[in-house]
């Protein structure tokens, strides 16, 4: 069986379309969250820097910007974990099903 015929059979498998739809949706949503948060932060830096200069509590030397900045790094890393969890778990199983059904 040629490669092309294999790929055609994959395209006819409804699970393939389910896989692509689910995984793409997750990837797009997470990208929008990460880039959205980052560019919001950069816009605050550019246009409303005083927000980030507010002390965390009265008399504190640490500012609101410190936890916000750290949160961008930590949360976007956690989101890579979320993506890997689904892509390597549920979606990977779906992918295996597709491969098994097509190559059988």
């Amino acid at each position: 069986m040629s490669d092309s015929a294999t790929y055609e059979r994959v395209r006819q498998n409804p699970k393939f379309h389910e896989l692509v739809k689910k995984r793409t949706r997750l990837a797009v949503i997470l990208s929008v969250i990460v880039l959205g948060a980052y560019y919001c932060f950069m816009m605050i830096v550019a246009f409303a820097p005083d927000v980030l200069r507010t002390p965390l509590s009265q008399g504190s030397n640490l500012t609101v910007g410190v936890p916000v900045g750290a949160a961008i790094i930590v949360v976007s890393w956690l989101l890579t974990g979320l993506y890997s969890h689904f892509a390597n778990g549920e979606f990977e199983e779906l992918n295996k099903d597709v491969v098994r059904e097509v190559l059988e």
Partner: protein
Amino acid sequence: MTRMITAPRRAGASAPLAAASMAAVGRTASLVLLALAVPTVALAGPGDLGGSEKQPVNVTAIAMFFAFVLGTLGITYWASKRTKSAADFYTAGGGITGFQNGLAIAGDYMSAATLLGLSSMVFATGFDGFIYTISFFVGWPIILFLLAERLRNLGRYTFADIASYRLDQSKVRTFAAMGSLTVVCFYLIVQMVGAGQLIKLLFGLDYAVAVIIVGVLMVVYVTFGGMIATTWVQIIKAVLLLGGGVLLCALALSKFGFSLEAMAAKAVSTHKAGVKIMGPGTLLADPVSAVSLSLGLVFGTAALPHILMRFFTVPNAKEARKSVFVASGFIGFFFLVVCILGLAAVSIVGADPQFFEGGKVGGKLLGGGNMPVMHLAKALGGDIFLGFLSAVAFATILAVVSGLALAGASAIAHDIYARVIRKGHATEAEEMRVSKLASLVLGVVAVILGIMFEKQNVAFLVGLTFGIAASANFPVLFLSMYWKGLTTRGALWGGIAGLVSAVTCVVLSKAVWVVVLNNPAPIFPYEHPALFSMTLAFLVTIVVSKLDGSETAKAERALFEDQYVRAQTGIGAASASNH
């Protein structure tokens, strides 16, 4: 206690503030360039080291570096016995696990410049340095979400494999390989010059000696050990760098009872900008520069040949995802540690006269502006810790240049020799021989260029490298995976448009137009071209592809469907071999 002490200082801080922000503006140019250098480059250039003086020979540092070299040479010997096929050589036979590869990717990204450059930015500007650090990080999640699995499923050895997957082999592959080689060569020059300067400074060795040592070791690792040795050198270095950074951070925090608040209070009272260091300053006030910088960093990184190559060393897409998760975890953690080190340096180094020229606190730092962390190591751990950190910095440069040399050798041997010149008819033994020869040639070229550029300000090469990667390589790579309509003609014209516009913007920017060519004012007002040149490259690629009505273009579009299935499922992907 702290509050009572700091409150009156804040009230009296307004006078020095103006002076400090002026100083910050003056420093912007070199800091931006330095920051650009961060992902893998050692240091932006000799100019940024503030005229490094040769130091007395540092015996501890040399002994520790010697131990590292012996260990890695042992690994290279072991790796050379396992490097039999071309796949072993280029991608370690796809036999690296996700976790190992994640550490190696983190190692590629956590360089001497990350440690020295970012921490010195925090030392100089406070919160602005933190913003830069965040900008360097956010590309990684995006690489995972949008690129990692497709890269793994479509590529075999090089990024040109993917770009030319369904397009004209000789034209697109040649262009992609040339793009990789250009990036590799510019980057090698920056690394070599940075290595020479840094080693002169930390080890007290001659510049030329340092450059030759780096060149020779790089060739040995790559030629004999291929990707297996390069990966392990990178992993060991990543662990040493992480360990050293965390230990230093813990020592610094222990001085303040493990309270970040107490450290910040001391930093605010020490730094001449006072409380202003805890909020955004003037460095990123212009959103166009900030966006252009971050686009260049995010997408430039995603198209650096030695980073892309790492995605082919794991057996499948699942491991590729895992490696990005691991890598971004280590990178994010390390970046936060580096920011704390910068703050600690403000509090400890910034208040200690022994680290300033002439003992004048707040004056010029000994050894130049990149040294705060090194001074911090000396202040907290004495000469032994300073020696350790210096050795790790040297090891870091070595690991990065090895990765670069391997990426360059694969572009020459796999893309240009085996695929374009021999049209895929070269035997594996011939390809291997050419790749080893290529890494030897790259080593010699790197040493010669490194010595030639000793006195030059090479900062512009960093902007150029990222500009070319983001504008010439990335659009073609991205569209080849995501857009059915891409044709050979579109890819070539778009790539050339990106290349020409990126080079033009950098030449007209301050780094070349003013600093190198001595003109009074830059024509292109921003430091980084990506926002403009990358957009142009995408536009040209899309328009030319759309207008391309040729028969070959139709055939290329038709091939997308099969490529898409492979990209999504991994069916037909190059798998782990020979292991």
